[in-house]
């Protein structure tokens, strides 16, 4: 099996995640799709590390995880706050800026 298959898998997962972000309305699901995209890039990083024979890719992947964790914590806090004030987790309901 060719190692680049991992990269193809990564690309596919990334694309699916991107579609999810654009298509789904539930803020939490949108968030999960973003996580999927991040995970896909992580897979690519790890694969690149293997192809290049050094650990830099894995380190990058590690940092991605940490940053993703931060992002999730803050993002979910925002969603909770949003939900508290308007009883809805739909991203389409948070469209007041257009007015």
């Amino acid at each position: 099996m060719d190692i680049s298959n991992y990269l193809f898998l990564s690309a596919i997962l990334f694309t699916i995640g991107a579609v999810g972000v654009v298509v789904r309305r539930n803020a939490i699901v949108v968030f999960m799709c973003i996580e999927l995209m991040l995970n896909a890039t992580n897979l690519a990083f790890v694969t690149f590390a293997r192809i290049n024979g050094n650990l830099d890719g894995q380190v990058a992947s590690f940092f991605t995880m940490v940053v993703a964790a931060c992002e999730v914590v803050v993002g979910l806090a925002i969603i909770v706050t949003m939900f508290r004030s308007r009883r809805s987790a739909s991203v389409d309901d948070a469209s007041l800026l257009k007015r």
Partner: protein
Amino acid sequence: MLSLALHSGTTATPEAVQFWFLAPLAVLAALGMLLVKKAVHSALLLAWVMVSLAFFYIAQDALFLGIVQIVVYTGAVMMLFLFILMLVGVDSSDSLVETIKGQRGAAIAAALGVGGLLTSLIARAVQGVPAVGLKDANNGGNVQGLASELFTKYVWAFEVVSALLITAALGAMVLAHSQKIKSKTAQRDLSIARFRKDSLGASAGLPAPGVFARHNAVDVPALLPDGSPAPSSISATLKARGDMLDSKIFELEAKEEEEN
């Protein structure tokens, strides 16, 4: 054998078996995440994708990352998602009908474009390129190797990320915090309040349903000392459901006679 295979950019058989078994499942799970209506199902499917990725990491000589992937992503991040899902109670099904005109078509077209171009880019760039493999890099152990990278070359980024983590934790606390104007009433406060009310009637608590009544059921009101029923003794849930019977029929006959 492994190194030979790696050199030509391909992998050993067990890894290939694992890949061809898990990868389609992962893609299916990802698609499923996109398509299912319940957010919790989405979360589960995503967790599955993440576990699959953890296996891929381990297969690719990233043992530490694989385990961390499970601990951090599956264990913490996805659990947080589930937690929030349950906390805010968004467990009902989402409508998948698109409300913005042209959004779905454009999204799919753009995504197909991105996916196709990415794939072809990768194919052009990587396919057939000999892979070096991590045998040398992991010589002293994967964890040790990562650690020495993290604490030498990337130490600045590491420190910055730690600051980011603290900031995020604080930020989340601030965002999710709701200022309490007065302290929460504890059991003790409630008890004190009960005794300090104008009437000491309720100080003993509400009567339990069925007490002194002819029926010992939860939907039957208790009888007060004078024989009259006490509707307040029945659970509010039953009242809301409409499962409560009319209180009057439980009045003691003696009282009815008196009135007659």
